[in-house]
């Protein structure tokens, strides 16, 4: 299976947010791979290997990102996990919106013709939850968002995807090629079943760490460099950010000594019981 994984770099979500004027000040940001995209890389690797150590790979995983030159670091980390090659489309983060990102990815998909595009369900910084579904629309492909499980069925022609929805898990079948966006639990030990790996095989929980060997190998893997204009994508923004502000901070309240006192306070002071 040929898989295209998309990857965005985001500022470390644990860092304190600073503003400069009414824009985010990212000058001291520690950039990292969006966690959901890291999970998508892990899922793609599980789909293309057999669980043996060392794993025999079938298929290929390409990781693509739109971003400035520094994104190479995040791409290298995906290559070190085991992806085969990477693509970087030159762009400044503030020059992008979901429309531009999706149209760029559409060009890459039409050129490289993967069987599957695996993406994070959400970029944890801007929380768009937009690009995957939009890309599927542009391609006229089926989509399975919020995937917590993926099973290859019909001799590799379709996927059975478990989707985390509001009231449980929806099972949706999508013919390939398709766009799948992954949710947190796709990295559970048995969430991905590719039809070749032994049915009871269990991965360790979470995305894999890059091995030293993987890190060395990543240095020699190709990162193709492209530009928006070279791909023929219009750069006019359709979604503009006019400013950001910090929400009013919640004050820490008081510590209460006993359950009895807590209930009395909730009743007489907060009036919520």
């Amino acid at each position, binding site marked *: 299976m040929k898989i295209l994984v998309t990857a965005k770099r985001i500022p470390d979500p644990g860092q304190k947010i600073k503003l400069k004027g009414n824009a985010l000040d990212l000058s001291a940001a520690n950039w990292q791979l969006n966690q959901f995209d890291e999970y998508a890389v892990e899922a793609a690797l599980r789909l293309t290997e057999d669980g043996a150590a060392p794993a025999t790979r079938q298929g290929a995983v390409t990781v693509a990102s739109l971003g400035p030159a520094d994104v190479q670091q995040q791409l290298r980390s995906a290559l070190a996990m085991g992806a085969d090659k990477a693509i970087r489309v030159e762009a400044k983060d503030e020059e992008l919106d979901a429309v531009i990102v999706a149209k760029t990815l559409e060009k890459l998909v039409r050129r490289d013709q993967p069987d599957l595009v695996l993406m994070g369900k959400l970029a944890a910084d801007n929380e768009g939850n937009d690009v995957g579904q939009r890309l599927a629309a542009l391609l006229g492909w089926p*989509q399975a968002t919020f995937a917590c499980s993926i099973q290859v069925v019909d001799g590799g022609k379709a996927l059975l995807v478990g989707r985390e929805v509001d009231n449980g898990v929806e099972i949706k079948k*999508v013919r390939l090629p398709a766009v799948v966006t992954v949710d947190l639990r796709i990295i559970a030990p048995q969430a991905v079943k590719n039809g070749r790996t032994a049915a009871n095989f269990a991965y360790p929980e979470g995305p894999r760490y890059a091995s030293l060997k993987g890190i060395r190998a990543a240095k020699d893997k190709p990162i193709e460099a492209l530009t928006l204009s070279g791909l023929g994508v219009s750069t006019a923004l*359709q979604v503009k950010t006019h400013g*950001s502000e910090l929400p009013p901070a919640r004050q820490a309240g008081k510590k209460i000594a006993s359950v009895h006192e*807590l209930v009395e306070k909730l009743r007489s002071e907060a009036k919520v019981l």
Partner: protein
Amino acid sequence: MGNVLIYLEQAEGALRPAALSAITFARAVHKAQGGKLLFLLIGDNVKGAAAQAATFGADGVLTVEAPALQHYLAETYAPIVARVAKEQGATLVGGTSTAVGKDLFPRVAGLLDAGLAPDISAVLAARQFRRATNAGNVYQTLEITSPAAVVSARQTEFSRAAAIGSNSPVSAVAPGNIDAQGAEFVELQTQKRDRPDLTEARIVVSGGRGMKDGKNFAQIEQICDVLGAAMGASRAACDAGMVPNDLQVGQTGKVVAPDLYIAVAISGAIQHLAGMKGSKVIVAINKDAEAPIFQLADYGLVMQWEKALPELLSELKRIKGA
């Protein structure tokens, strides 16, 4: 400017509660941009829900019905929403950002070549919206500059609309060619619960990893039942299999904003806080006085849940006279 088209979710012949929030959002955005306000319902039988939708003062209610539309699929619903939007001259299309809305609206936006304002918390102007980003730590003002705009609204930020009793005309629109593009609904694995939905409850009691075992959540359930509350959980508790995943509160789970949120044995990671810090009153019960959850809790109880929960249950039973 053009018209406003709002997709309303329905189930079993009635509007879903999320649709009532969509109507409140619809009124706000209609006030900002003018034009006609139209509601759209899609399914295999939406007559009951359409009759209900007709009582909220819209200029029209449109229905699209076909057996093949029984189960929601982005592949079949999105082209209908996009087509109706064009036919009706709608320049603003939207609804609530439920699991369906989050799946549907970006696909609609892709078909319309429109910008999307996702999961907004306020309408600032016809094309300007406020939304939370970065796990709720930033408020952002977005402007959509494409001719059509697609907008989804966060359910907890728009109260449920009340009917005004008017009678909007209801008209059927032909479904046209329905093509699932290789997608198929197989089944929904769901657990029926007697408690209120997380996103709708007035009180939510959540448990975290510190609960240690799924069976200990029975103590939280008992408290929920005395309070008429919904039960929630942290990611760690869901991942450990203590409770079903759809109880997860947070950036990746449900966003809740009840009058009272009680966090039991939850440390207060930013991704969890993103889903509950809009609550009116927050109570934290944690054995670790340094847990970050105490930094935003209105009332903090430094105590083991093994001691706190049985006491809480009996206190609550006493005041509720149960």
